[in-house]
């Protein structure tokens, strides 16, 4: 039985906290905005909860959890949640990713 989940690291040895402010990349702002809209701000349709965001972040494999940035974890979790809820399908996601990849070439 796994008692301590990987993300549940309170009290474990760690380095100093980085206190500096930093700018966000454009895509990070978009991910934040997406989450705001999906959780039903200003009476928009509520398509997910912050608790589902956390559940799917906590479900990341330990090495992915450690190496991904904050908003990388968010975007993976949001995507997983929308597939679980049937808002998007895996096929739609695959096709869209191919389309975006072509656009970038």
């Amino acid at each position: 039985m796994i008692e301590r989940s990987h993300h549940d690291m309170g009290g474990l040895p760690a380095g100093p906290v980085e206190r500096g402010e930093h700018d966000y990349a454009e895509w990070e702002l978009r991910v934040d905005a997406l989450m705001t809209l999906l959780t039903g701000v200003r009476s928009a349709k509520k398509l997910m909860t912050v608790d589902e965001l956390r559940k799917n972040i906590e479900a990341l494999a330990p090495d992915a959890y450690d190496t991904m940035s904050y908003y990388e974890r968010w975007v993976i979790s949001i995507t997983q949640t929308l597939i679980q809820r049937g808002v998007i399908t895996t096929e739609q996601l695959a096709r869209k990713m191919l389309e975006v990849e072509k656009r970038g070439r």
Partner: protein
Amino acid sequence: MDVERKFRPGERVRVMKAYPLGHVRTPYYVRGCTGTIERLCGAFPNPEELAQMRDGLPARPLYRVRFLHRDLWPGYGGDPADVVEVEIFQHWLEAA
């Protein structure tokens, strides 16, 4: 109707020492530990259920619980009066 509150500020409580699957908001390091109710924060839908696409109702009491660090960490070397406060749902608590 919200779930009825069981505890008052100043009462001693023990955190359930359990390790269920799923999304839980009770940190590992306080499970099985004893602390004191500091205040009632209100009643909120159960996040463990909200994480699984259910409504989490009825709302459950959430408390701020105060722990002495020396009760959490074996051999704690700081001030013996140092505390940490953690917000914990009622269903994780029992009278101590």
